[in-house]
């Protein structure tokens, strides 16, 4: 029972991370297409400024929980996906630092260096998280004793790339919607138009991914065994349609929440299909790491559950408060305050 609860919590943590950081990763990717002037670029930074760091802590927590609840899976996953993970980490470092550094020096070269850090530093994680998770869904070549048998390019395969593209589209739509909420004038119109233009591509990619999942993974097995679970992919489809409806009515907050719902349910769709495996071996199912052979001791899981049930609601409460505090649109006069980036 405890390992199952933790498996679900593990999935939920990753889902929350993607729902939150997804918008600032996506917005980082879109910045060169949306901002024409330095002021507009600063407005985009400012729209993410109070949130990106708090969002990224969900990644640290998701990683930490993988370590704490399923140490064997953590060990195999992170050493097996070594190069991809390191690439993500370096990208996240550059991107995070660009927020603090970009406007500290007035030189255009300096600014442009950090702008590109933000753009690439957002693009790579958005793409690579998709590639990595699609590969987890599909199974990776784990041999006996959890030894990773693949090479550098193992992750680059059609299904993995489909996952990468899907994440990229999910996050860019999410980011465009965020900017549509947060901005006014030209920037707002460009963000709104971008979200509307990207949506059909997201739809196409989602359909391709669902079909590819049928072709290359066993994710549907759990769903066929327990048809009630189909509510999850149905929820994702409904959320996808709702995004379009709300965009049509220019209700940006609602569209953003629908988009968050889509990202969350899409992640959970994969995670639930994976159960009870955390890492499915593509060599032999006997080598797979699952909630039985990869979990921590019951005592650790129990203590961790106590900590999570006490503190995660508290975290959610103050993060919601922080979001509420900065709910307003960002305007040019906000940039004049000295505390702004």
């Amino acid at each position, binding site marked *: 029972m405890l390992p199952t609860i933790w498996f679900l919590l593990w999935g939920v943590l990753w889902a929350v991370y993607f729902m939150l950081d997804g918008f600032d990763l996506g917005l980082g990717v879109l910045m060169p297409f949306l901002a024409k002037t330095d002021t507009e670029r600063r407005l985009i930074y400012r729209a993410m*400024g*109070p*949130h990106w*760091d*708090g969002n*990224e*802590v969900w*990644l*640290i*927590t998701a*990683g*930490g*929980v*993988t*370590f*704490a*609840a399923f*140490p*064997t899976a*953590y*060990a*195999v*996953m*992170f*050493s097996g996906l*070594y*190069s991809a*993970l*390191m690439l993500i980490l*370096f990208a*996240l*470092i550059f991107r*995070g*630092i660009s*927020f*603090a*550094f970009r406007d*500290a*020096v007035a030189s255009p070269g300096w600014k442009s260096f950090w702008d590109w850090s933000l753009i690439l530093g957002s693009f790579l994680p958005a793409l690579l998280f998709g590639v990595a998770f699609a590969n987890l869904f599909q199974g990776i070549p784990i041999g006996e004793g*959890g*030894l*990773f048998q693949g090479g550098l390019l193992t992750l680059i395969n059609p299904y993995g790339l489909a996952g990468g593209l899907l994440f990229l589209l999910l996050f860019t739509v999410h980011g465009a919607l965020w900017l549509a909420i947060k901005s006014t004038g030209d920037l707002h119109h460009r963000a709104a138009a971008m979200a509307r233009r990207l949506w059909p591509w997201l739809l196409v990619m989602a359909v391709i991914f669902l079909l590819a999942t049928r072709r290359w993974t066993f994710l549907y097995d759990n769903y066929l065994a327990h048809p009630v679970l189909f509510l999850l992919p149905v929820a994702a489809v409904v959320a996808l349609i709702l995004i379009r409806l709300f965009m049509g009515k220019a209700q940006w907050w609602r569209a953003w929440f629908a988009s968050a719902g889509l990202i969350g349910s899409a992640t959970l769709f994969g995670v639930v299909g994976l159960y009870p495996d955390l890492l499915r071996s593509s060599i032999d199912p006997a080598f797979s790491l699952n909630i039985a052979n990869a979990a*921590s*001791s019951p*005592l*650790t899981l129990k*203590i*961790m559950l106590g*900590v*999570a049930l006490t*503190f*995660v609601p508290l*975290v959610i409460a*103050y*993060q919601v408060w*922080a979001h509420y*505090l*900065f709910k307003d649109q960002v305007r040019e006069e906000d940039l004049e*305050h000295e*505390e702004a980036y």
Partner: protein
Amino acid sequence: MDALMLSRLQFAVATFFHFIFVPLTLGLSILIAVMETIYVRTGDETYRSLAKFWGRIFVINFAIGVLTGITLEFQFGTNWSRYSRYVGDIFGSLLAIEATLAFFLESTFLAVWIFGWNRLSPKLHCLCIWLVAFASNLSALWILIANSWMQHPVGYAIREGRAELTDFLAIVTQPFAIQQFFHTVSGAYILAGFFVMGVSAYHLLRRQHIDFFTKSFRLALIFALIFSLAEIVQGHIHGGEVAKIQPTKLAAMESHWNTQADAPQWLFLIPDEKNERNLVEFGRLPGALSLLAYHSTAATVKGLKDFPPDERPPVALTFVAFRTMVGLGFLFALLTVVGWFKRNRLLESPTYLKIMLYAIPLPYIALQAGWIVTEVGRQPWIVYGLMRTKDAVSPIAASQVGVTLGAFILVYTLLGVAAFYLIIRHARLGPPPAPGAPAGEEV
């Protein structure tokens, strides 16, 4: 080089770099919180400007600290997967708790603090920086509890080929962890104090923003004075714990080869690891080592020769790092005590101010040296007495680690240069003129 050596170097580079920035975060957050509290209580606008000026430096420094911390967490999985699997039940949960309790708190409320000057009441805004200070120190507590478990594993049982948790309370309350926490954060507070004093001295020497930087200097002086003195007493107690639970580390710290009662200390010595002796020994203090480690000159101190060679840490490095740390620790106490007597006539003490300006790097060196003692002195173990470092490394190709190690060195050097460029630039610039004040006037 093999994947083991490369992974060790990579972890050392990553920790070293991370720990350049973390101590300033730990101490400066408290100093800023005190400044803002004085502002809220007295309404003195200077203290508001103080909090903002030092806050700017804090934010740059904080960003690097946080982002380089993420790579550390993930490296346990990427490079030390055998370790992660073996001790994840305990070590992993401590890291996860750290993230849940502390990281959310500090990152969320720091953002609110940065952007909330005009949105929150002064009291609530001040509370935010206190939460940041509390959370960053709380995170230090949890990571040091985790590190202490590597120094002195308790509360576990070996089951199914791994260390499993049996007593959570024993782990989080073990005296070694508490000592290590106080030792590390006191060092961090000294560093932050010296940083603020050094930057203030720069401006006071130039006779600019005198009121602003006198206030900064005095506040930092009190802070650094308290913790420099406390650190000496506490460091001694901490050393006693090391003697009790990590005899090989103690012997390496002192380059002490032969087991003996009434063990002396030497004012100066040169270790000769190859021949298991000291090349030069000078200035004998009879019985001092026994006395310091066990509070009795009669006590026996085990020497390195009594341990098999494959259980000894690198002696010269541990020894030099320890001496450096202790020597600097006493220097900090001396400098802050002198400062206490000069506190009311700082401007008439240019020599002292100059010394304090050039003293900024010293606590950085002392803290890194302290970590070398802790981590190198623990070798060849990754978990003292339980798991060897060479058994902990991931089954990954050396070429992979070689590439990322190169990337770490390159990227971190670049970022380090950029960060210090920004911090120094901002520090030299001084506070912005007060609203409405003509340019160049005293703030």
